[in-house]
């Protein structure tokens, strides 16, 4: 007993000493939060080239305190509950709309933005944020199909409807997300991915249920790992996940069906909790710089909305139709709107019923 108590006291002491040392080091190097030369960046995990953060600090003198989240909803809840002081964060399209509606965002002063002209106009002025009053695009991407050329012929899997082919029995891994799964069914029926019609949704659910015999698993981020390991022949997932899977297995390919798909955005916004606005604008301008944006796009592997940065990318990336689809395809892509509480639940209930329909 005495040993145990001594042990615990020992551990506590060590923790305290380490904590004190860390605090001391932090105050010495000036990263403590009370300093005004700081930027609190709240971003997805591993979603920026760390070299760029160093470069930013070197150029502007602002220290970056980088915190991460793993879902839009987690980020939203944390900002809404208050008690945070994030200067910038990176939500996806529908979440920007939701945060905007709930007055959680500060409008951007366009006169302070120097890099606005670098962006491709196709990716500005989207339905979730007209005239980019609140947000600047960070990365964009699509929903599509990964297939493995060892098992599947390219010509057999170019369109969403191909997924329903009886040839692919028990071969497809589907992303575990109500919006995306239902979007596939809605697109094959020529309906909007933001439909608020009960009939459309019911029809989409029925169509999706017919896909079940082909579905091997309904999972999330693990898709890229499983595809890289040849666990399944086909998967439906986002372009960002796909680019990672493709980099691990040369037999994998990514297709964005030309009849349409989801176009998603991660945009940088300033939450109303922002305390260091000058630092935030400095960072927005730093990231709009073509050279920095290109470096980031090369590191992350997602598609950059920065037109001038795209030119700087290596030819192999720039001309990759998988991740920079042609205009014809881009024209058919649809952005998700925030559906509101009622319809978010309806979509999720439909998806849950689909998931339960397996036996």
């Amino acid at each position, binding site marked *: 007993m005495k040993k145990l108590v001594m042990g615990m006291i020992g551990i506590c002491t060590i923790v305290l000493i380490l904590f004190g040392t860390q605090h001391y080091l932090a105050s010495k190097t000036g990263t403590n939060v009370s300093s005004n030369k700081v930027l609190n960046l709240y971003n997805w995990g591993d979603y920026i080239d760390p070299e760029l953060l160093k470069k930013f600090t070197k150029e502007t003198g602002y220290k970056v305190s980088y915190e991460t989240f793993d*879902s839009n*909803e*987690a980020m939203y*809840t944390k900002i809404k509950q208050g008690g945070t002081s994030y200067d910038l964060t990176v939500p996806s399209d529908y979440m920007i709309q939701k945060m905007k509606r709930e007055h959680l965002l500060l409008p951007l002063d366009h006169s302070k933005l120097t890099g606005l002209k670098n962006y491709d106009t196709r990716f500005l002025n989207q339905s979730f944020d007209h005239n980019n009053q609140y947000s600047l695009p960070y990365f964009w991407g699509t929903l599509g199909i990964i297939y493995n050329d060892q098992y599947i012929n390219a010509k057999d899997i170019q369109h969403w409807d191909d997924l329903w082919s009886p040839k692919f029995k*028990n071969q497809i*891994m589907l992303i*575990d997300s*109500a919006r995306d799964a239902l979007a596939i069914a809605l697109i094959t029926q020529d309906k909007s991915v933001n439909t608020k019609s009960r009939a459309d949704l019911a029809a989409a659910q029925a169509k999706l249920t017919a896909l079940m015999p082909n579905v*091997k*698993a*309904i*999972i*999330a981020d*693990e898709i890229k*790992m*499983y595809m890289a*390991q*040849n*666990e399944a022949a086909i998967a439906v997932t986002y372009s960002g996940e796909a680019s990672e899977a493709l980099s691990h297995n040369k037999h994998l390919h990514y297709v964005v069906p030309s009849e349409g798909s989801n176009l998603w955005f991660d945009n940088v916004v300033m939450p109303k909790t922002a305390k260091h606005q000058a630092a935030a604008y400095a960072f927005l301008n730093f990231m709009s710089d073509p050279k920095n944006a290109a470096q980031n796009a090369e590191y992350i592997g997602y598609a950059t909305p920065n037109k001038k940065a795209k030119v700087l990318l290596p030819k192999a990336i720039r001309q990759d139709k998988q991740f920079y689809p042609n205009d014809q395809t881009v024209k058919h892509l649809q952005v998700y709107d925030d559906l509101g*509480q009622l319809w*978010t*639940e309806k979509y*999720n*209930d439909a998806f*849950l*019923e689909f*998931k*339960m329909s*397996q036996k």
Partner: protein
Amino acid sequence: MPKSKQQRQLFYIIPYGIWLVLFVIAPLILLLFQSLTTQNGHFTLQNYATYFASGTYLLMTFNSVWYAFLITIITLVISYPMAYLLNRLKQKHFWLLLVILPTWINLLLKTYAFIGLLSKTGTVNNFIGLMGIAPQQLLFSNWSFLLVAAYIEIPFMILPIFNSLAEINPRLAQASRDLGANQWQTLRRVILPLSMPGIKAGIQAVFIPSLSLFMITRLIGGNRVITLGTAIEEHFLVTQNWRLGSTIGVILIVAMVITMVLTRERARKSSRNRG
């Protein structure tokens, strides 16, 4: 400065009391409150009505109970003979340690290890490949889910059974044999009834957490096994309908309480009077 015994006892209760209020009672009240109110804070039973009127949720509840039941049975069938055997070994505490060892490893890590074992290019398929059998689809099936869940829960079943078996006086078994009972009769009439508290504790320790397993349902089961944990996660994270999520939480708690009551220690007196 001698304090009275009562005062000292009161002093010891304080940390326990604070803990209980902060981390047990307050969250339970919050959960119940969420499940019984509308967005505007009015009292309502609507969430419960939604739950019980939905075939999906009822089916999911049935699934949860059914899989938790299967996991409990599998672990019990494996654990009882194992605990019995361990008790007869010379270095029994060493062998028990080996059984408990996996609980020191993070649950997710163990799950990922199983992915490595069961995937198409994994160890198991490589092994059966040596014998000329084509790779099998092992992941994303009910069996793989049950296997992994049972593996994770087994230590919690073995431990209480082992302890209750260790407490039995070996002379009781000898006496039983002296009085003419064969080995089977001794096991059934003497050992089994005496180890019943351990079995019940093991069932509680396995069945209750199994009701709300959810990471494994996705990672190993590929969402082919859907339990209430999946629905709770969805309501808290995706639809942000915390009220319905809390309702499901409350229903799970009620299910757990029922399990506790069913497997509780019967009052000693009645069992003694019977003899």
